[in-house]
């Protein structure tokens, strides 16, 4: 089945989320711990991220979220339909922010290779900025139900779309299908997941070169891809 590439920036879940109120977690980073003055959605997000981080999705209760956020049950229930809904919204907001930053970085340079690097730097900056949030975004989503799994799958698809642009670097763009980009995206996501699981975000590890190596291998060839491995980022 021939798949035509989708145009960038038109992912459905991006459009649908713009209409809803969503937990804004970007403010967390500058403010550190949100105090009483922080908006409710922010405090809920923080509580969810911490609770899931310490005990896993299964262990989290609405009561614990309310306690951690310093709100009463009624307030929670006026905004969320329950634990899963809350998790998905918090997760969605984080995923959106990452996508925004990555897409913005991707848009700037003019060569595909530079775009891949720029997107990568943006993603790593995001991960290292807040390791707990990184862990929440990538690791905890696995145990959080099928809608969360779908969300994760969409993130990988988004990555595949960025990578698929490499086809234009080939002499015959038609010689390779979207399947290659999907496979590479899966490989990259799996690598990032395993590393974040192992504490790479806390240790601020830089393994972007190996990811660029994987992303560029099918489109620029083995020699050019290996060049990426020589890059040692200045952290």
């Amino acid at each position, binding site marked *: *089945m021939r798949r035509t590439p989708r145009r960038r920036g038109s992912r459905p879940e991006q459009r649908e989320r713009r209409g809803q109120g969503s937990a804004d977690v970007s403010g967390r980073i500058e403010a550190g711990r949100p105090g009483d003055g922080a908006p409710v959605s922010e405090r809920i997000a923080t509580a969810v991220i911490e609770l899931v981080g310490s005990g*896993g999705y*299964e262990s989290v209760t609405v009561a614990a979220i309310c306690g951690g956020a310093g709100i009463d049950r009624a307030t929670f229930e006026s905004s969320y339909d329950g634990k899963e809904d809350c998790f998905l919204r918090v997760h969605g907001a984080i995923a959106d922010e990452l996508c925004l930053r990555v897409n913005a970085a991707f848009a700037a340079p003019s060569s595909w290779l530079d775009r891949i690097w720029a997107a990568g730097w943006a993603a790593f900056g995001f991960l290292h900025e807040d390791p707990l949030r990184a862990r929440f975004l990538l690791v905890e989503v*696995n*145990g959080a*139900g*099928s809608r969360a*799994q779908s969300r994760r*799958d969409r993130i*990988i698809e988004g990555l595949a779309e960025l990578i698929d642009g490499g086809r234009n670097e080939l002499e015959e763009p038609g010689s*390779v*299908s979207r*399947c*290659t980009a*999907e*496979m*590479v*995206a*899966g*490989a*990259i*996501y*799996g*690598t990032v997941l*395993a*590393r974040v699981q192992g504490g790479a975000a806390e240790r601020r590890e830089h*393994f972007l*070169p*190996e990811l660029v*190596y*994987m992303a560029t*291998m*099918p489109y620029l*060839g*083995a*020699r050019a*891809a*290996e060049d990426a*491995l*020589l890059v040692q980022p200045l952290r």
Partner: protein
Amino acid sequence: MPPGRHLIPHDFVAQNQRERLLLATAELVAERGYQKTTIELIAKTARVALVTFYEHFKGKEECFLAALDESAAAAGEVFAELVDPGQPWQDQISLGLEVFLEMVEKEPARAKLCIVEAQAAGRPSLARYQEMLESVAPKLREGRALNPRASLMPDGLEVAIAGGIAWLVHRRLLAGEADGLKALLPEMLQVTLTPYLGEAEAGRAADAAQARVAA
């Protein structure tokens, strides 16, 4: 089993029950997901008493993990049987990949269990999934001997490639498109072999695989 004298040894019955339970688990989880599969349902589908379930497994998780392990072991046996370690490395990889895709096409429920559901059934299960990916690494790694610049290659490359293959299959399983998987063999092979052999050689292997699949 009715009370009284039994001709069939208890071990056999137990083994048979265990197998039925594992089979039921695989089918149910593939169909409705891990969360929605209950012990009652497993026992019922396996035509086994609830009490008997607990004779074999402490709980749902243990049963699921056993199903995973058994599938992985069965797959390992198939590979061992069909892939000849005496063959050139790239031929082993090509055949191994083809065998894998065929296994998925033939038993999509079991494949879904190992590739999709394993990631969503708790931390021990996720750990098993990781182990499955890692088990492929040593064979892939043998290819490094063919690359004069192997020292540059990242350590996690093999596991990453396994993850990429798993992801492709994952997508198709979710979309109910397991049937068309073998058609992806040439492209998957190209991506897999390029880091070791370079794109030209990998392309040749992919073309040869294309011919096999088309036949």
